[in-house]
């Protein structure tokens, strides 16, 4: 690898290749896809959270002019099987429910018509006779013996339960001077990107081919299972990527949208587009996120050392278990945080209820654990009479301890956590704010300074999908990313990606890496997105992996390409490859720059002048490389060591400063400092954009966002009027600081960073609010911290006096 001081493009904040088409409205999102003869779909949604479908009459719908196909669950079962599931349990889901619905909003019929207006008219004409069933409205009801079952075949609503123990938890707790205990409630939220999910399915009956355009993600994993669901030969089933208007983890699979579009295309013989509307997206997506109750304990010594961590967590998974307990595998990569905690035990209960299912949302479960751990840490500080800063310093892993193996078996590759903390405190000027806080407190105002020091694991290994299972159904271990790099006839570069764009910067990343490797202008690189039949193996964006993985894939392809480039150049220049050097897009003899060839010269030879090439070389100038996870090891059979599965670990410290109006409960930000160490930075501006956006979402989780279900399983927050995304008026300007501690395992020492802002912000903001209300003895044990809750806590505290 080139010396950092000599890097020309990696580390530069160049403006993005993706932007011009996004700025002008030229970008092609799923709703911009039009196929000739295309129909539009709408879905009949169950008004009940739990009900049998006694009778369903679609005759009036079918008779409506403009309606081409109407499909019930029974009729769909002939065209498609259950949707793919990645859990080991027999939790069966059909995209259109067959004999019962299990959450309010579940599809019970689907229509394809000439436009969406008519399709919805047809939905109005479908008659359903429902037999409402008792609703499993929360985990408490779900676990009550003899109560209603979401899936009768399971015989229970406890779909998964297990305890994993790492290290001598019992002993460490016995040795502790004190046990800090918190009961914490993390609310159900979701990614809610501005663009909903959608798919266009085109089934060609004679050739039995199906093409699906969709704003989905990991189609290397999912294309074959989808082909199975839709009963199409896998090598005749293709998923075509489009620009994605935000995902944050919610569009990884899109099983319902793709399957319903596919079913309707088969039924109608025409292409069919199914766009989620916003109700679909909020109530019936694939992807609500963690919905947890924690009983957590931190064993500490009197002088503030953290010894052990015990976690008891119940997670409400809703009506299906499609992604399994992946969001609990995720945080085991960093469950002990940046601290030298020696042992940890987690008891997980995954429970089914009559609600929308879960998948993942930025942080994928680790942001929850970060909040829990930082809440314990701040409480420990308070109980021990130490400052939040000092208690953390006492336990932070030190630079000389890396690579650091945590009790679960995962590694932290590198870091300098004290450095990040120092920089954050310096940037925020903690001393000044503490003085200001004291002054304003004396005047009866409530100012809080929050601190959170958290890990942001990056570059996941697919073992996290299944290692909770003793007997997984499909123990996948490949987490690849493949690209093809072509130097065209004119010497210009084209890169074929195997994963979609979803607001990250894949085009810019590959262009910067190629520019670094070949000395070209990154803005000349052309990037293509391949469909699933043409693409190489790739897991796609998510888990903060893509920058690292693309860098690995592109450098790997570059290495192969350079070999051929040098061999052709050597042959044409009559020199030895060792005597040649590549710089600024030109290959020349070392020390004799006038004896050189541009990449264009070399390319034209490679493409057209076979007889000028070394005999053993083929015509052409392209190379593919599939980069596999750089460092992952399997879990042990007994799961006492989960192996390395997320060892590229970034770290951050956030320090928000808030003021609370205790009479109205409104929270205002006075300052927000975030220092991130994501290893070598590829593009600092793009990194900062991810951090700021992630923090905005974290603020949303901390203060605004919650899905509220009532006792009948009705979603009471099913519109953007009730499920509140923060606006420009609620999100403060973030002052971002950087530290770069390179990873020893990755190209250029890069680490992933996409999720980091949201992984830290909820913990930091909660701690800030807690600090503000500390004079009243208030602890924050549930999110979101709404004005209603603040006023209630304050009045309760005042009543106690």
């Amino acid at each position, binding site marked *: 690898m080139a010396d950092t001081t000599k890097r020309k493009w990696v580390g530069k904040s160049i403006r993005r290749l993706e932007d011009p088409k996004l700025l002008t409205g030229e970008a092609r999102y799923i709703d911009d896809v039009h196929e000739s003869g295309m129909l539009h779909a709408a879905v009949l949604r169950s008004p009940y959270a739990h009900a049998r479908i006694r009778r369903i009459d679609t005759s009036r719908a079918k008779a409506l002019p403009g309606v081409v196909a109407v499909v019930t669950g029974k009729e769909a079962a002939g065209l498609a099987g259950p949707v793919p599931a990645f859990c080991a349990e027999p939790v069966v889901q059909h995209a259109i429910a067959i004999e019962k619905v299990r959450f309010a909003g579940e599809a019970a019929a689907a229509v394809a018509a000439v436009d*969406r*207006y008519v399709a*919805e*008219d047809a939905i*109005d004409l479908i008659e359903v006779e429902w037999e409402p069933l008792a609703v499993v409205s929360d985990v408490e009801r779900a676990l009550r013996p003899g109560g209603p079952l979401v899936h009768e075949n399971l015989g229970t609503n406890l779909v998964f339960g297990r305890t994993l123990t790492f290290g001598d938890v019992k002993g460490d707790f016995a040795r502790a001077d004190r046990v800090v205990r918190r009961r914490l409630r993390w609310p159900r939220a979701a990614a809610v990107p501005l663009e909903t999910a959608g798919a266009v399915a085109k089934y060609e009956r004679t050739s039995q081919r199906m093409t699906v355009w969709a704003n989905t993600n990991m189609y290397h994993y999912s294309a074959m299972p989808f082909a199975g669901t839709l009963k199409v030969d896998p090598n005749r089933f293709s998923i075509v990527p489009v620009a994605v208007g935000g995902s944050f983890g919610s569009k990884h699979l899109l099983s319902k949208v793709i399957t319903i579009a596919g079913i309707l295309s088969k039924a109608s013989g025409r292409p069919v587009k199914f766009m989620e*509307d*916003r*109700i679909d997206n909020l109530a019936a997506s694939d992807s609500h996120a963690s919905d947890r109750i924690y009983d957590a304990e931190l064993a500490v010594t009197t002088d503030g050392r953290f010894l052990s961590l015990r976690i008891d967590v119940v997670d409400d998974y809703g009506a299906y278990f499609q992604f399994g307990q992946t969001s609990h595998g995720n945080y085991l990569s960093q469950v002990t945080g940046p601290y030298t905690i020696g042992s940890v035990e987690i008891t997980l209960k995954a429970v089914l209820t009559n609600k929308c299912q879960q998948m993942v949302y930025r942080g994928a479960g680790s942001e929850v654990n970060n909040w829990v751990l930082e809440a314990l840490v701040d409480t420990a500080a308070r109980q021990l009479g130490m400052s939040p800063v000092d208690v953390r310093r006492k336990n932070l892993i030190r630079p000389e301890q890396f690579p650091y193996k945590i009790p679960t078996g995962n590694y932290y590759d590198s870091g300098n956590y004290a450095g990040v903390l120092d920089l954050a405190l310096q940037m925020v000027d903690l001393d000044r704010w503490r003085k200001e806080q004291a002054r304003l407190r004396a005047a009866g105002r409530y100012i809080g300074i929050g601190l959170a020091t958290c890990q942001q694991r990056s570059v996941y290994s697919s073992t996290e999908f299944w290692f909770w299972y003793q007997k997984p159904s499909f123990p996948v271990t490949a987490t690849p990313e493949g690209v093809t790099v072509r130097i065209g006839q004119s010497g210009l570069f084209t890169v074929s990606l195997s994963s979609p764009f979803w607001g990250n910067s894949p085009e810019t990343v590959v262009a910067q890496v190629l520019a670094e490797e070949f000395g070209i202008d990154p803005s000349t690189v052309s990037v293509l997105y391949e469909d699933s039949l043409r693409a190489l193996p790739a897991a796609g964006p998510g888990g903060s992996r893509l920058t690292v993985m693309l860098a690995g894939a592109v450098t790997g392809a570059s290495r192969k390409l350079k070999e051929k480039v040098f061999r052709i150049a050597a042959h044409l220049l009559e020199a030895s490859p060792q005597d040649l050097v590549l710089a600024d897009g030109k290959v020349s003899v070392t020390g004799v720059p006038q004896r050189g060839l541009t990449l264009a010269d070399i390319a034209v030879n490679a493409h057209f002048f076979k007889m000028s090439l070394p005999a053993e070389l083929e015509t052409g100038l392209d190379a593919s490389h599939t980069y596999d996870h750089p460092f992952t090891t399997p879990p042990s059979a007994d799961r006492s060591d989960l192996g390395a599965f997320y060892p590229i670990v970034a770290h951050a410290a956030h320090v928000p400063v808030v003021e609370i109006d205790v*009479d*109205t*409960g*409104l929270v205002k930000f006075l300052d927000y400092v975030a220092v991130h160490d994501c290893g070598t930075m590829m593009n600092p501006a793009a990194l900062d954009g991810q951090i700021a956006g992630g923090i905005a979402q974290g603020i949303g989780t901390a203060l*605004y966002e919650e899905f*509220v279900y009532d006792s009948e399983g009705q979603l*009471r*927050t099913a519109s953007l*009027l*009730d499920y*509140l995304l*923060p*606006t420009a*008026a*609620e999100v403060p300007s973030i002052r971002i600081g950087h530290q770069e501690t390179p990873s020893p395992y990755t190209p250029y020492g890069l680490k992933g960073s996409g999720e980091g802002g949201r992984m830290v912000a909820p913990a930091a903001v909660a701690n800030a609010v807690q600090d503000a209300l500390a004079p009243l003895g208030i602890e924050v044990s549930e999110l979101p911290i*709404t*004005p*209603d809750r603040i*006023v*209630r806590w304050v*009045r309760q505290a005042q009543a106690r006096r």
Partner: protein
Amino acid sequence: MKPPAFRYVDPRSVADAVGQLQEHGGGAKILAGGQSLLPLMNLRLVRPPVVIDINRISALAYIRETAGVLALGALSRLHAVAGSDAVTRRAPLLAEAAAHVGHLAIRHRGTIGGNLAHADPASEIPAALLALEGEVVARGPRGERTIAAADLFRGPLSSALDPTELLTEVRVPITPSGCGSVFLEVSRRAGDFALAGVAVLLQRDGGQCARVRIGVCGVGNTPLRMREAERILERSGVTEDALRAAARAVEQAVAPSDDTQASADYRRHVAGVLTVRAVAQAWQRAGREGR
């Protein structure tokens, strides 16, 4: 979410519009700004068989002063109301309330007539109209009548307008000199509906509170006048004790509900808090005004 089919008419005169309303009885819906009606139609929560689009009735778009009254045509856009020189000088409380409605794009289309006829209990304009002791003019098949603000709001999304009546004009008394007014609200985010909102119009006479009118929104099935709080302040002036008593009177007078955004207890509490703040601020503004 697309609206269901409807018959669409766009009359050019008030007489035509009323004629259409009469012809279709309770089956027709007036489309003014559409910022409240179209979301309901897109969600298929309302399915009017006939939609009467009044946006082409140019005679309904005006803001005039006559004889101590500020008259606004029903089609006055909220953006125009908020920015109007006449409204800002003659009935500043109305301009201030209008500026709080949603975001600019909503205010470009939303109308004062539509807002009042929609009668959303969380909406700012009705509370302001109560505090201003304004009235509306309605035209129906039997002619024209005036409805005082106090009689206009019957329940959530329910006004005193007959299904065959068109709200044509909004009238507010011109705010006399020596007055201060303020509109305050608490909402979850900028531009959201008020969890609780308070409109105060206060006439100051030296150190006395000659007259005060308080309208609240978001804390009942309709906007409400806080008459007991008004009496307390008029009797005792704007003192700390009187403000505290007024806040308690407001807490007792409002009838809020729980919803996903806030509990009834919270709304009740905040209505009291905002009353104190709004009255104090109106008092300050009246003091500056009086000089």
